[in-house]
Every structure is written in C-alpha cells, then in structure tokens.
C-alpha cells in the first residue's frame, strides 16, 4: 500500500514549508494493495534529526495539536484533510529536516508498516543571532543573487522606497506597518524563489547583535563607514543605483545593545492602556526611526535606506514587534476598531485605508499614486494564496490566519506563537 501526503494541499516540493500556523494538508491512498478493507487507519507522526524542526497534527480546524494523528483513509483514493503546524520553539534549520511518516497496522500482531512519508521544513523567521552558519550563508547567498550586482530583481525593491511619492504610500500614516509587512513578504518570496529554505531573519535592534555585524554576515564598518565583507561573502559585490558597496557608520558599539531605542516592553506600551493601533503605530518614530538613525550612511534616511540590506532585517524586527503586539492584544481582526487606525471621520490618505489596495502591487500609476509601479504584483507562494497579488491593507493584519485560516501569509516569527 502507498499513500500520498500533500502539504499545503499540494504535491509540489515548493509547498513543503510550514510555520506555527496550521497548514492544510491531505492524505490519500494511491496504491491500495495489501488490504481488502474499504478504509485504513493511518497513523501520522513526525521524525526529526537533532536541531531540526518538529511538527504537530490536528484533524479539524479546532482543537489541540498532538504529536501523532490517526486518520481513517478510504482506499478508493479519496483524500482526507488534516492540519500540520510547526511545533512552537522547534523551527527547522535546513530544508527537509522534518519528516512526516504515515504508517498502517495491517494486523493486530504486526508492527505498523510505513506506507508513505514526506520531508518538509518548519520555515520560520529567526533572530540573526540564532541562525546557524549554514542558514546564514544560504541567506546571504540568496540576497547576493537577488541583488546580482545591481542588475537583479532587488532594484525593484529599492525603487519602491525611493521617491517621495513612493515613500508617502508607506510612511507617516496608518498603513506604515501593513505596507512594510507586504514589502518584506514580497522580498522574502523572491529570496525563496532563489533558495526555498531561506526565511528573512530579523535584527533585534534593542539588544546586542554581535553575530550580525561580522565579515561573513552583514559586514564590519571601517572607520570611514564603508562596510567590509569577507572574500567569500557575496555581499561584497552589493550594488545599488550604480553605486558599489554599502555605507554604514554605526554610532554605537555593535557588540553592545544600541542606546536610545524603546525596548520591546516599552514598545508594547505605546498602544496605551486600551492597546490601540492608532497609538501603537507611533513606534514608526521610536523604535523604528530611532533604529534607522543608529547609523550614518544609507540606512539613516528614508530615500536611501533600502540600499543597505540591513534595512530589511531592521524592518523584519519592526514587523515582529507588531505581530507580537497583535498576539498579546488580539489585534488580528480588521473589524475591531482598535486593530487599525481608520482615522474617522475623514479617513486616511489613499493607500492607508483598510480597503485600499497598496501601491506598487496594485499597478495604479495615476495621481496621487506614483507614476510608475516597480516590481509588478506581489510574489506568489506555493504554500498559500494569501495575501494575493494585489493585497489590500486589511489583508495584512491577520498574517497567520488567526481569524480566517485562508488569510495565512506563510511566515511566522520564532518567538511569536500562533494565536
């Protein structure tokens, strides 16, 4: 007998990535030989190597997850749904380091027979300080290729965050956090098109990050603020706007925590006693803006900030802070006023209202939107259909499907569990 396991309801290898949020899966019998019954009981379990990810199972859309799951599966090929989720606290470190095994006990006296298996990855956004060397190298390799010496797809991401008209689509109003969430996701998916095992790491800017500012990772700044890389680091060829290299002068010691930023707990209090998004979004100034100005160089100012790839790790942490605040205060539901700032009665600028599509993914180039829309629609994923090629602001709130499972965007943070 053989069974087929579909992760994220797909047989594609590119769909075999899960997060803490439940991923819809299916199992079906593809070869019923060995039994005359109309259905068999299949037991699912996961096997992990050391330091690898782990997954848990659930049959329906509610209830607790468990390490194993038994399912009655018809032998006629009809598929049976179930859910898999990464076990919180055990993300993968390599693609395929977790295996799901399906076993059937054909007779009471015989041990269960392995009838099918699939490898997958619990792909999670981690702190830069907890990446393995291999994870780090895969990430910088993918990023180097995305940049491709200034001629790769990265230029579109740079162009999305350059002109004042573009910056106004994403800064200084309610849509700051959702826009950047979509921006990071788009970039991450482009990295995953190069290497599917890559997830965007975050720079925990209120703590020391000694591993990040190294020659093999995001470089060491010399006394003039030029970032140096090791000879084997592809980021040494980084180029944007025809300019070679990265300018970044830290105003603090990179082996220590930077001063002047709100720490996590302080950030979470910005929403006030009622935990309002309207107040929480002031984090755009501090810690977000304050993190930017910890350095001289590209990252210091809005029109040049994304020329430094550190920008994306900084914003990954900003997004993580939002995600954590959302979890702490149940702020995933767009219909809850406290979850967003709709700025009644006038509403927000275009692009910042819940129902607005977001530039550039919407392709709108008539005023007041910018005149071009670099990059096209938001990159697709084999793991999920959300948030869609032209996401609206509201599509970026319920990022891991806490309210609507279909809204799951396919990423999670190592220290933000599923709601």
């Amino acid at each position, binding site marked *: 007998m053989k069974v087929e396991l579909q992760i994220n309801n797909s047989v594609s290898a590119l769909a075999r990535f899960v997060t803490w949020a439940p991923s819809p899966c299916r199992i079906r019998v593809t070869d019923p030989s060995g039994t005359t019954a109309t259905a068999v009981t299949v037991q699912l379990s996961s096997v992990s190597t050391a330091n690898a990810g782990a997954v848990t199972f659930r049959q329906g859309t509610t209830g607790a997850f468990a390490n194993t799951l038994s399912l009655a599966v018809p032998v006629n090929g009809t598929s049976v749904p179930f859910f898999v989720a990464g076990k919180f606290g055990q993300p993968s470190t390599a693609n395929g380091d977790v295996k799901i095994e399906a076993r059937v006990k054909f007779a009471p006296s015989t041990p269960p027979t392995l009838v099918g298996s699939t490898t997958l990855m619990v792909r999670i956004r981690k702190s830069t300080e907890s990446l393995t060397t291999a994870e780090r190298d895969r990430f910088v390799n993918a990023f180097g290729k995305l940049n491709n010496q200034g001629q790769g797809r990265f230029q579109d991401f740079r162009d999305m965050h350059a002109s004042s008209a573009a910056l106004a689509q994403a800064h*200084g109003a309610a849509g700051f956090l959702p826009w950047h969430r979509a921006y990071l996701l788009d970039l991450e998916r482009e990295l995953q098109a190069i290497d599917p095992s890559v997830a965007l790491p975050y720079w925990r800017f209120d703590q020391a990050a000694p591993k990040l500012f190294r020659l093999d990772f995001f470089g060491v700044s010399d006394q003039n603020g030029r970032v140096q890389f090791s000879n084997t680091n592809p980021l040494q060829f980084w180029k944007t706007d025809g300019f070679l290299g990265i300018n970044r002068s830290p105003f603090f010691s990179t082996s220590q925590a930077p001063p002047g930023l709100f720490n996590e707990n302080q950030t979470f209090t910005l929403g006030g006693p009622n935990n309002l998004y309207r107040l929480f979004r002031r984090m755009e100034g501090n810690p977000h803006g304050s993190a930017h100005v910890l350095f001289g160089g590209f990252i210091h100012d809005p029109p040049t900030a994304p020329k430094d790839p550190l920008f994306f790790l900084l914003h990954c942490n900003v997004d993580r802070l939002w995600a954590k605040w959302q979890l702490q205060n149940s702020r995933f539901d767009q219909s809850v006023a406290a979850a967003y700032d709709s700025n009644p009665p006038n509403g927000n600028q275009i692009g910042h209202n819940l129902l607005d599509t977001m530039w550039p993914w919407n392709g709108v180039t008539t005023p007041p939107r910018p005149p071009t829309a670099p990059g096209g629609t938001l990159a697709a994923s084999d793991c999920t259909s959300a948030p869609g090629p032209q996401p609206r602001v509201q599509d970026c709130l319920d990022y891991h499907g806490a309210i609507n499972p279909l809204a799951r965007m396919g990423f999670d943070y190592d220290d933000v569990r599923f709601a």
Partner: protein
Amino acid sequence: MRNRSEAEFARLVDSLAADPHRRGELADLLREDHSWYEQRGTATIVRMRGWVLIALARTGVTDGTLLFILEELDNGVDAYLIAAAATALRAYPSPKAAFGPFLVNALQQIRYRDEPISFEAYGAYAMSGENTTAVRELVKTVAWLGPHARSVLPDLEALRSQSAGLSKELATALDQTLKAIKNNEVNEYGPAACCDLPSNLANKMSWLRNYRRSSRPIESAIFEDQDGTRFSFKEFFRGHPSIVVFFYTRCDNPLKCSLTVTKLGRIQKLIEQHGLDDRVNTAAITYDPDFDLPKRLRAYGRDRNVRMDARNRMLRATAGIDALARHFKLGINFIESLVNRHRIEAYVLDDEGRVAASFARLRWNEQEVIDRAVDLLRERDEEASSIDGSKHRAKGAPKKLALLGSIASVAVAFFPKCPICWAAYLSMFGIAGFNQIPYSPWLQPIFALVMAINLLSVWLRGWSTKRIIAPLIATTGALIILASRTVSGWEKLAVCGVLLTLAGSLLSAVTWRPRKSLAFFAKKSLMTG
C-alpha cells in the same frame, strides 16, 4: 564651456534681463544643449536654470518661454526649479485654466520633498525656515490662477481634506484659494478651455513627408541591443515606422526616464492589441552607452515590463551618442560621459528612418504617439497605392484610352455597312459638314484595333490589380460585338455588347483607393474610441 564661471553666467542672465531688446535670449539659455551647461554637475545646472527662471519672473514670460516653465512643473523634481517655475508662471500675461493641472501635479510631486528656497542672489541657499519654499510658491500661483483653477478644484479639495502632511499655513492658504475659486466664475467653458495651451508651444511637432530630414547621416550608426546583437540604424529602422524614446539607467528623476521606458512598454501593449506589432518597431536608446551595457539594458527594460524581441529593442550606440544627438537634436548635455540634464523626448520615425514627429519636454500621451505611427502607416500605404496607380498608367491605357476604347467598341458594333448607312449616321449627328465625309470603310478595322487595344489595357490593369471582373465583362462585350457583326440574327445583341464593353472599361478605370482609406479610418476610429 567649462572655463566660464557661474558668476559670469549670473551676470549674463542679469544683463539680458535688464535689456528689453535682449530678453528673448533668455529662452535660449534654457536649452539643455547650450554650451553653458557642458561639463557641469546637475546641482550647478539647477542653480543656473533656476536663475534664468527667476529672471523671467522679473521680466515677464512669453509663449516662447512658457514651455520651459510648464516642463519644470510637469516633470521636475527639484524644489528650487519648481519654486522658480511657479514664481515665473505668475509673470505670464494672464492666468489660464490650462495651468491648473501643472500646478497640482507639481504640488503632488514636491509636497513631501519641500525645501527652503532663497531667490535673493544667484546660487543662494536658504538656511532658515523664514524663506519661501516650493510648496509656498506653488500655492501662491494657484491663488494667482484664482477662478481659473476651477478645473482642478477636486484635486485641491482632496489635497486639503488630508490634514496630515499640511502645515497650518498651507492649509490656510489653500482654504483661501478654494474659497476664491468657488466664489468666482470666469468665461472659460468646456473641456477645451480647461486644457488648451497656446498652440505654438512646440512640445509636439510633426513634419510632412517632403520636409523630413534624411536619416543618411546616421544610417551606418551601429547599435547593440539588450542581447548584445549588433546592427546598423538602417537595418533596424528602415522599412517600418518606429517609435523611439531616449533614456539612461542612471536617471534619478522617476518622472523622466523610468516613466518614459515604462510608457514604452504600455505603447507596445497597445500596438499589440491593435494588431500592429509586425508593422511598427519600438526602441529605447540610452544616452549613456558606455555605462548602459547590454545586461543593464535588459534589466532596466525587464523591470519596466518592456517587451524585447526582433521588433522591440533596448539599444546603445556603440560609437557614442554624439551623432545621434546631432541628428535628433536631443535636448541633453553631459559631464564627461554622464548626462547632467535632459528633457523628455520621444520620436516617431517613418519607414525611411526619418523623424516624422517629436514629443518633447512635457509628458506625452501613449495614444497620441501611436496615432502618429498609424498615420505613417497610412501614409506609406497611400504612397504604395499611388505608385501602383502610376504603374498602371505606364503599362496600360490611360483612362482616356479606356473611354476611347469604349467609343471604338461602339463604332465597331455599329459601323455602317454601306455608304448610305454612313450618310444616314452622319446626318443623325446633325453636324454640319459631316455628311460631306465620304464613306470610309477602312475606319472599321481601325476602330476594331482601338477596341482591341482598350481590351488589352483593361486586361493589363486587371492583372496588376488582381481584379479580373472588369476585363471579363469587357471581353464578353467585345465578343458579343464581334458576333453581332458576323453571326446572322445576332445584330440586335450589338447593344448589349457595347454596354458590356463600356461597363468593363469604366469599371477598370475607377481606382480602389477610397475603399482602402475607409478601412484605415474605421480602424483608427476604433483605436481612439
């Protein structure tokens, strides 16, 4: 030229502004290719051009200089130049509704990039917030437009409704302006009044066929495309109309090159939708061929959804940009090999590679550009038809011959068989003296020969136009005529024979051109509709 200082330039501008007989020369100083701008950095050029615009603000703006001002408002991104342009616009003799969209556009572009501006002296930079700013000057100019800004009232109201991002001062100024617009009417009616600029602005130019400059000077210029394929100007641009834009990848004004190339991509889609993609070429040529190597061209085009294939290419001139600059009269200047300032420009070339239309300085409309290319296609097809027509006239009988042939057919059909009939016919015509002409039977074979020549000409015309209906009719008629003369009892059929011969000859003589033009017009009206 590089050795002349900015101070000299400022003195020149001031002296021209002070001399009423030389103020017209100020416009010349705004041409990008002026020698004053050679080998200067962009920031220097901003100071220089800004000072000219400020001079115009003092001396007055004419239609000749208006285009440069509108250009800055249309696609400029530098606060100093936008402020100077807004200030200068107020020196135009009278406000026009057509200025409204330019001011609103500039406001949208600069409102999040505002800067303090000083016009006190050449090259002065404001060091405090007490000075003016680009946004302040724009709002002042909108106020100057007053009720003429009615067409952009919705845009201004939208701007005002978002209180975030507006200073109190700006909000107050806008409130006052909105009030002035709403409370007053002006005598400008209809959409034409809204959008009409002076007709002699010269941002769009067209040249009739006989007035286009030959492309010979650049025919042998070699290009390399995004794949590294090399070919001459002649090889790519001759044979089909082409739409050509200029750009460079290091342009940092998103309203110029990036938008231009993006629009080229949109033009390509429109061309394809109308089934013209095998009839019109497109090309984007870089101003910066030394830096914009093929891979860079390809990436730039790819990122802007530009199609790249045999008829659509991203190009660099391998021998440098100079010859092209001279031929196209490009609005550009350089510091070393890098562009320091350029205007928006797009061209439509005819099938001989000659410039037939240009769109410069202001952002152009994709449909307008395509319309010009379609006009060139029609022109080419009309030219081909008239060549065919003249070939017919050379090969076969002219229309006169067709008529003569028809008369000959009549003559053959009804040639009198005897002298008495002959006299009777001539009398019938009642022409004095005709009845004195003796019976001339030798005329019959001559008429027959003329009829045969006519028939031959009809067949030749039919063969060349691939329409054989007319020759068949004429031949049938001729055969009937011959039969009526030879077969007993068929005499009465002579009339039919004559009528058929006449019909065939006349049908052959009518041209097909109107029907073809109608098809073109029908297609064009579908495109614009």
